[in-house]
């Protein structure tokens, strides 16, 4: 069941959830719309570094309400904590945060956050993208030492939908707190 506090748009395959979210935000899609993709063809992180995004992972971007830049910065940092907490609470795994944007498990990257803004006179639009390696079975050789997934660490699959709901709900709550 969808939470009425946010709206989820699912895509089977997409170039990048952040890209899509930006497009939709420009066309007037309402804040707290969440773009979810089963896989991204051109997922990226900071400085456009590719984010390995095969089927099984949880890739989503949230169209944020117009906020102050300082609040968005804070929210980006907080989102890493929220992801880390969700992993710890749900799976009892030891999580580390590599400030400001990455979440590590076993010293390997398990999640990343990228906030993108379009700024003119004021903030025109903001999207917050999260890539979470949930049910990825194997990484390519060049990433094996740098990335891991919940499935690899736990030895079992996790519920993407459940994690998504928890993370978005928490982010909404936190933004409310820092903006008011």
């Amino acid at each position, binding site marked *: 069941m969808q939470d009425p506090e946010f709206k989820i748009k699912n895509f089977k395959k997409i170039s990048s959830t952040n890209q899509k979210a930006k497009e939709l935000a420009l066309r007037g899609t309402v804040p707290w719309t969440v773009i979810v993709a089963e896989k991204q063809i051109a997922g990226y992180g*900071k*400085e456009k570094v590719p984010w390995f995004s095969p089927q099984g992972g949880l890739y989503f971007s949230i169209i944020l309400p117009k906020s102050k*830049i300082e609040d*968005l*910065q804070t929210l*980006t*940092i907080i989102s890493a904590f929220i992801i880390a907490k969700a992993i710890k609470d749900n799976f009892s795994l030891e999580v580390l945060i590599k400030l*400001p*944007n990455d979440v590590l498990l076993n010293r390997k990257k398990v999640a990343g956050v*990228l*906030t*993108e*803004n*379009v*700024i*003119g*006179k004021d*903030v*025109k639009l903001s999207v917050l993208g999260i890539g979470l390696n949930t049910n990825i079975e194997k990484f390519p050789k060049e990433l094996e030492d740098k990335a891991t997934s919940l499935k690899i660490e736990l030895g079992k699959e996790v519920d993407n939908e459940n994690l998504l709901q928890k993370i978005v709900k928490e982010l909404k709550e936190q933004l409310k707190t820092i903006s008011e």
Partner: protein
Amino acid sequence: MKFKLKIKGKEFEVEILEEGEDRVKIKVGEKEFIFGTEEEKKGVSLIQTSIPKRDFSKKEIKAPIAGVISEIFVKEGDFVKREQKIFFLSTMKMENEIISDFDGKAKEILVKKNQEVKEGETLIVLE
């Protein structure tokens, strides 16, 4: 010599009262005006000030936040439209696309790629 002049639908009666080598005295309606070499100069400056002023105040785009200019999308001399993408400004936590607030020609780009900028620093001046 008298003649009538119609400006924007309104008729003015103009009479040339004096016509010297460097001086002309005319009467428009009930008012007299003298134009000479000196008066002409004054006249010109008066006309200039009466032209509706164009907005020459600087159109500057400043960094909304401290960061690094990771990409520049325009060159000096380019015509920039309002809302056109001009820079990517990367910060520790975010990627920011800086768009123009104005239409105008890129007069001066004050930053280079990979340059660190402070909040409030002017990045580009348009004209």
